[in-house]
């Protein structure tokens, strides 16, 4: 594989490095939070779950956002084959995010919350994040002046950059009292913004993965093809309209649910295409599996298949009621954030940070452990979800404490597989830090 590096990748690589530190933090906080399931009340009087959970979730989300931005900036340079314009703004962008992410994590330790699920921090920090994103947008748009004759990945980045800012601002609309005091409307808008926001960062990440695939293939045939654009528009359509599947049980306007249901079913096309192409995907995988970034791309492909399958099942309202509010949803989130997002981001990291063959064995072992422990982790959550669901449907007045007790053995498995998962991440991340030292 040609390793393209230009002299400016260094400060875009800092996004990846800072992101990797956040990933490590997410793993540590995640283990601490998971131990609260295995050993209930463990942290109650010292560092309770309402602190541990946001520390874990925000570190994970910030890892994804930072590394996604880093991949876009690095690959954009490679795409343009010249230094980024407004490089000094990139530094501002980096420090704006680094400052706000650090401040947010510290504020959690002091029990300061805005208290919205997933974005639990105080709304003051939203200003810095939005400003940082604004700078990113300026840098991006001034380096991509037009969409004309651009490959699909530039369209995807463009969409991700714009829609993230929109949905992020939307997720702060609860600050308007008229909106927040109507609980149903508040939750509808909240989940509308979250659904599209995840779609937005996926546009950045999937865009980068198309770029990297092309780079490995050595041509840009795919990113100008009709099918690539057809899939992009299908993805965009889903980003905009499929979010209703998060709130089928919320008594909001019925059309929200019908639109969410109908639009989500168009993802069957993507699912069908993966099945249809599995043979050729497998032979491409055999050919390129020795390339480290490709390995992670291939793992992400497998997780896309599993996660999408589960997501489509959850998008049918009559099946959704059996899974909504249970650990099956957590399994889906973990499949998406670890199996898909983190695998892809690691692929980018391995492309952006130069590697020698010195750690090949360790990376291979880590890679195997990562995927196998994630599989156990994922399955355990699905099993726990099914048990919770079964009890909810068969014992209408079930005692919550009893149900948690019956899940206990699964929480042990969940915690132990989580430990292996964290160890595996360490194994695959460490060579990146060492590579950086050499680079």
């Amino acid at each position: 594989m040609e390793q393209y590096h230009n002299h400016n990748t260094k400060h875009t690589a800092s996004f990846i490095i800072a992101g990797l530190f956040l990933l490590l933090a997410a793993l540590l906080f995640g283990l601490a939070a998971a131990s609260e399931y295995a050993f209930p009340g463990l942290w109650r009087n010292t560092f309770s779950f309402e602190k541990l959970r946001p520390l874990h979730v925000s570190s994970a989300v910030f890892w994804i956002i930072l590394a996604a931005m880093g991949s876009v900036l690095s690959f954009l340079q490679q795409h343009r084959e010249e230094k980024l314009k407004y490089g000094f703004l990139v530094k501002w962008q980096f420090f704006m995010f680094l400052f706000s992410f650090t401040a947010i994590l510290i504020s959690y330790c002091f029990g300061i919350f805005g208290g919205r699920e997933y974005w639990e921090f105080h709304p003051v920090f939203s200003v810095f994040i939005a400003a940082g994103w604004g700078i990113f947008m300026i840098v991006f748009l001034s380096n991509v002046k037009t969409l004309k004759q651009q490959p699909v990945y530039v369209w995807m980045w463009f969409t991700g950059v714009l829609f993230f800012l929109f949905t992020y601002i939307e997720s702060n609309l609860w600050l308007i009292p008229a909106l927040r005091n109507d609980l149903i409307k508040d939750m509808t808008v909240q989940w509308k913004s979250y659904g599209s926001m995840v779609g937005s960062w996926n546009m950045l990440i999937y865009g980068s993965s198309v770029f990297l695939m092309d780079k490995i293939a050595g041509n840009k045939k795919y990113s100008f093809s009709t099918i690539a654009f057809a899939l992009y528009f299908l993805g965009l359509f889903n980003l905009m309209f499929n979010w209703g599947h998060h709130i089928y049980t919320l008594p909001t306007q019925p059309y929200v649910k019908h639109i969410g249901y109908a639009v989500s079913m168009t993802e069957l096309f993507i699912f069908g295409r993966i099945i249809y192409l599995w043979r050729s995907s497998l032979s491409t995988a055999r050919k390129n599996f020795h390339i480290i970034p490709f390995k992670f791309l291939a793992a992400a492909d497998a997780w896309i298949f599993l996660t999408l399958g589960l997501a489509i099942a959850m998008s049918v309202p009559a099946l959704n009621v059996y899974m909504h509010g249970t650990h099956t949803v957590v399994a889906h989130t973990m499949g998406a954030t670890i199996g898909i997002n983190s695998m892809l981001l690691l692929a980018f990291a391995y492309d952006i940070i130069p590697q020698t063959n010195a750690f090949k064995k360790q990376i291979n072992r880590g890679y195997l452990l990562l995927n196998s422990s994630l599989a156990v982790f994922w399955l355990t959550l699905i099993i726990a979800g099914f048990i919770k669901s079964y009890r909810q449907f068969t014992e209408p007045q079930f005692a919550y404490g009893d149900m948690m007790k019956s899940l206990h053995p699964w929480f042990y498995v969940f915690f132990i597989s989580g430990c292996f998962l964290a160890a595996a991440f360490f194994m695959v991340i460490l060579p990146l830090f060492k590579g950086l030292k050499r680079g």
Partner: protein
Amino acid sequence: MISFRYKLFLLVTLSAAFLSYSALLYFADSKETQPANALAQKGKMLWQQKNCTACHQLYGLGGHLGPDLTNVYATRTEEHITTYLKYGSPVMPDYNLSAEEQTALLEFLKYVNTTGVAHPASFLKHTNGTISQP
């Protein structure tokens, strides 16, 4: 290959549809429920500031360490709820809430209960895959 003009047309049309849909949702009334009263509004802010969502769900959305509280006001007595607010549980922390804060949170949970029913078993399931409240 799809022409640039066609791609741009698709992007603009989809975005316009998205923005219209967004505006519709911001301004549409969800008429079925009354907005929260002042005390419940205070309770909602406390709910957020104390990050109760980390462990509890409303309408199945939220954490998994504690139970869904959408209809706790209907299924438990006020005394029962207040006891938890006062002392927590072996897992739920004791927030040292003042009497005023406890009343506000109780009023919020009372309000949430008026907005609908969350228990998954209460939904009617239809053969076309949709569901509805009974």
